[in-house]
């Protein structure tokens, strides 16, 4: 399956790329098999994700999942953020080839790790 136009748009115009100087929650996870990396920083105020930024290295699906996730997170409550699934991230990209699903898994894992690391 070729990559969707939506997917390519995330690659060409990544949403929310970068880091937050005043982040309350940060995590960087890597896939030990292929070496892909995703770093997520979140600013959380009043139980809501006020801002989300990502950095990513690796296959295009990892980059696109980081971008899709960072875009989805803005404005969600922490509880809603915790509920985000792989399928939702894949859906936001217009689908992913089956052997690239692990990129969405890395995104979810990084998000959960960040929320765990949240400063109180």
């Amino acid at each position, binding site marked *: 399956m070729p*990559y969707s136009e939506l997917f*390519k748009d995330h*690659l*060409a115009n*990544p949403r929310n*790329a*970068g*880091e937050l100087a005043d982040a309350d929650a940060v995590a*960087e996870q890597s896939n030990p*098999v*292929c*070496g*892909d*990396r*995703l*770093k997520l920083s979140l600013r959380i105020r009043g139980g809501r994700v006020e801002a989300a930024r*990502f*950095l*990513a*290295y*690796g*296959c*295009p699906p990892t*980059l696109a999942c*980081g971008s899709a996730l960072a875009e989805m997170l803005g404005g969600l409550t922490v509880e809603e953020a915790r509920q985000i699934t792989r399928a939702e991230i894949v859906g936001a990209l217009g689908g992913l080839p089956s*052997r690239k699903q692990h990129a969405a898994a890395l995104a979810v894992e990084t998000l959960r790790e960040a929320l765990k690391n949240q400063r109180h």
Partner: protein
Amino acid sequence: MRRVYLDNSATTPVDPRVVEAMMPYLFERFGNPSSVHFYGQEARSAVDRARREVAALVGARAGEVVFLSGGTEANNLAIRGVCEQQRERGRHIITTAIEHSSVRAICDALERRGWEVTRLPVYEDGIVRLEDVRAALRDDTVLVSVMLANNEIGTIQPVADIGALVRERRAAGQKHLWLHTDAVQAIGRMRTDVEELGCDLMSMSAHKLYAPKGAGALYVRRGTRLAPQNVGGHQERERRGGTEAVPLLVAFGEAARLARLELDERIEHLRHLRDRFEAGVADSVSDIVFNGDRVRRLPNISNISFRYIEGEGLLINLDMQGVAVSTGSACSSGSLEPSPVIRALGRDDELARGSIRFSLGRDTTDEEVAYVLEALPRAVENLRRLSPLYQKAQAERACAPV
């Protein structure tokens, strides 16, 4: 959108002169070369002409050229053909760590069936050493298979030296030792002569030479015995059964003729543009590594590793700007391991994953190179902006004492 094709090592566009030469054989000259009547003989003489042209391109005799479907089939016939023919005399093959995937897969398959395979390393320059070949030769070695020019980095292997070594061993009594070279990337891009190389078998493909896909040839030196891999017809002197693909072979012949006549100017053109391209990249993009020896290589390939980013992302970014290239990243090939060729140079995984092959062709223009030199730094910058590896390196650089 403007489009620039820099993937000529994957395949080349068909030369209009080649299309013109093959057209009659798609229409009125449709005969089967095995038929005795007029139509058949017309097709037969066209195939013979094509055979002479392909032979002339590589300094062979027409009778030494076996037509088949392409490079992969040529590699199969050469390697399996020799090994099966010589199975009672020895089951040891010498090859290299940087062969095309078809040669690698054929050797792997033979290994599973009991052959021993020695895979010679290359060094940082991407070139095999003659001394390593000499040291690997055994009394039961039946085949040495070393590519003439590598498909990813373009490095030219010392096949002529290896050829001299093989002849020496043969003269000393090892009569059943043969030399095969995969010249798919080399023909039409460097002077290629089977006598100078001293090879017994040489694989060629039409579609890297501005002819259509679906045709190739194996040079088989007179006296080299092969077990045919495709039986069921008397074609190609019993070496490859199946009705000849007449239009494709006519195209291959015409492409070979043009390549022979235009070789010097093609090489000059490619080298000029490639050097200009590489100078431009070195000026405009930081943290890059050129892969492979800078001198002993084909004139049309430039392989560059971009630190901190992954090749397929760069490929897609370039494609969205209309520039077509290829990458050695694992992601693209569907495997977990990045390019074995770049890894064989001793590069780390990050550099292997970030390698891009730019391969120029006879149609590439100065203007196109200039366009790519604008698009490439943009694409690299886009990805590095996202890369945690790059951000970290930048932060470290900022902190480093001056």
